[in-house]
């Protein structure tokens, strides 16, 4: 379950930001997770709650913005929306696809006090 490592990565990033700004607490964390990233959202929430315990972000709310998957279809020469990496192009049914969106795993914002 790599969501545990990802949650630790989130905590490291937000703790560093809070420390750098001299804030005592992180009360909210906003993530962007792409649908093609392979991250299980429920597992991510579970792991986040576990890793923030006893940290500067204890009890912080977690908001996850799931961005849709998209890919460039070589056959259609167009960008198309896909729900899963193994999905065919919704226009031509082919698989000549290069994902170009929905692979993100980012910390966008935090709320501090």
């Amino acid at each position, binding site marked *: *379950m*790599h969501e545990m*490592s*990802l949650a630790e*990565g*989130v905590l*490291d*990033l*937000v703790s560093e*930001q809070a420390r750098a*700004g001299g804030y005592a607490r992180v*009360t*909210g964390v*906003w*993530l962007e*997770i792409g*649908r*093609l*990233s*392979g991250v*299980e*959202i*429920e597992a991510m*929430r579970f792991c986040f709650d576990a890793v923030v315990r006893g940290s500067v972000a204890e009890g912080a*709310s977690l*908001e*996850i*913005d*799931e961005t849709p998957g998209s890919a460039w279809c*070589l056959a259609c020469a167009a960008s198309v929306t896909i*729900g*899963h*990496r*193994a999905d*065919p192009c919704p226009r031509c049914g082919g*698989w*000549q*696809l*290069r*994902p170009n969106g929905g692979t993100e*795993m*980012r*910390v*966008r*914002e*935090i*709320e*501090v*006090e």
Partner: protein
Amino acid sequence: MQGQGHGTGGGAGYRRAESGTPDTRPVPTQGSRRLAVEREILAANNSHAARNRERWRGQGVFAVNLVSSPGSGKTTLLVETIRRLGFVFPVAVIEGDQQTSRDAERIRATGAPAVQINTGKGCHLDASMVERACASLDLAGGGLLLVENVGNLVCPAEFDLGEAHKVVILSVTEGEDKPIKYPNIFAASDLMLLTKVDLLPHLVFDADGCLDYARRVNPSIEAMRVSSTSGEGLDRWIAWLARGVEAAREGARR
């Protein structure tokens, strides 16, 4: 889990945009403020990986990250590969497993240096573990660095170690649909080795169908069929490695 739209709902205390998708950013409460972060979650691993890659480039090391499910035949393949390579250039191995140093011992029996990393509960190697392991290997003269990742078709896909290529190993006993069931790891790999092909006569396994599935998630993936038991296909795999080593050493000399 995909497509259920969980995790984006904003309840009380979250503002909504006038129209369209809800704005789920927390509303600042009294005495608090919002800070833009905009950093990759894996930023720390990625910068470790970039450091590894830079060091290996300077040393002329061709590093390969072998990923697969448990028991696909990685260590057996590495042992056979090292035996056949015959030390025409330096070869070193990093073994990742949750527990035991059995795989590193199997490698050392060939005469090649090997470092075991035990990840405990961790399900993948990360770039800083590999960096620490490299401290006890002599890679200054360049050559081949084979990294056997923890047996897991999910997590290692997301963790760059600084390798030149991820190589995904799929044994024919696992079923031909693995590439579409675990697409991220096949998408992240440049080469798929279909292993244990000596067993094909005893199985119902559609090797062409398997490659077809792999190309659905990665149109440019290369593929080879190998058997560590019969030796089938090993020459091609070894030639692929030797070409990589040659290019890496060439690059370091420039």
